[in-house]
């Protein structure tokens, strides 16, 4: 079923996150795509989970992890800036075949989000894929959640209330605009309010001026 607008209200979206396990179509596509490459390198920018690390290492040859939420939390705890978030994204150009952005865009401002997208675009190889999850529904997901990966690509959100990060909800259209440097491939909206997107970098490289304008 295709929805007509990005802002269409969700029915039955109030669910307990721990009971809202769902099959992630995008995760399956994302990992099966990476699996085609014998030397695939995945970057996970989400909260650290040992189980997920081991899961991903069954699908890719090399996994890099950089917990961006650690820096967000640290900055919030100190109540003073610790420097721009994107400075921690200091990976070399063309390093990754895939980048996983669990729900980072739910917790960063526009300026930071744009810079993160630019860094991702620079660090991903041509043809590389970006998976984005947004849990923008503040009723179903009042706090940041991690995702445990279960059988058959089912994701089980686990609330992390101790993170205490302010939600910066983004509409579907805003996320698509934000990711304009990449080619849009797929997106899914689930009953629990989770939105998933799959993007891919062009075989050619730089961010066009048109894309930069649209991202502003």
């Amino acid at each position, binding site marked *: 079923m295709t929805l007509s*607008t990005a802002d269409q209200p969700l029915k039955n979206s109030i669910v307990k996150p721990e009971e809202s396990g769902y099959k992630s179509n995008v995760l399956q596509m994302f990992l099966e795509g990476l*699996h085609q490459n014998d030397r695939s390198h995945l970057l996970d920018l989400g909260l650290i989970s040992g189980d997920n690390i081991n899961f991903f290492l069954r699908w890719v040859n090399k996994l890099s992890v950089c917990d961006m939420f650690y820096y967000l939390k640290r900055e919030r705890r100190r109540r003073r800036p610790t420097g721009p978030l994107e400075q921690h994204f200091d990976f070399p150009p063309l390093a990754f075949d895939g980048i996983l952005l669990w729900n980072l865009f739910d917790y960063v401002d526009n300026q930071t989000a744009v810079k993160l997208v630019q860094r991702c675009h620079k660090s991903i190889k041509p043809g590389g894929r970006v998976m984005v999850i947004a849990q923008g529904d503040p009723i179903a997901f009042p706090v940041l959640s991690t995702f445990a990966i279960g059988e058959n690509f089912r994701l089980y959100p686990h609330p992390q209330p101790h993170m205490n990060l302010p939600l910066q909800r983004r509409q579907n259209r805003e996320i*698509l605009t934000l990711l304009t440097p990449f080619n849009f491939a797929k997106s899914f909206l689930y*009953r629990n309010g989770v939105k998933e997107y799959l993007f891919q970098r062009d075989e050619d490289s730089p961010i066009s001026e048109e894309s930069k304008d649209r991202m502003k």
Partner: protein
Amino acid sequence: MLNKRRGLDKEPTFSSDIPKEENVSYSSSPPVDRKTIIGEHISIEGNIHGKESLIIEGAMKGKIELEKNQITVGTKGRVEAEIHADNVTISGRLTGNIKALGKVSITKGANFTGEIKARSISVEDGAYLKAAIELEQEPQKGISPDVKPPSQGVKPVPPFEKKPVIPGADPIKKN
């Protein structure tokens, strides 16, 4: 005092605040589950080679090669080093690269930055990690007890078609 206990012909070890109950090494004789402790108030810069396990609670900078033994960076350990060991456990702060023949374990509260090559890895929630991880001798890449492996010999996935983003035209599909 220590010289009397271990003999003048023995290699020195680095130790401080040694608990009595620990089986701590004072010699270079063939080790049987022996371990050396670098205490909290000890700082070392240089290379360490050996054949017994090492616990670091102090500061260490350099290179550590204990190919058949365990290295533990304790909760108070601050280490900047290239590490080559059998098993590595990190509970403190470690910056550097690890090559482990066995397992790397990163516990809650640990802070690790660097690269890891190991046979297996375990990471507790609450650990900070900025790392590139490679597991050697993956027995069955892509095969998980929970997830069916992708079919073998599948064709490469073609690049996605570029689609313009049109405001109001929502591509989202409901599951």
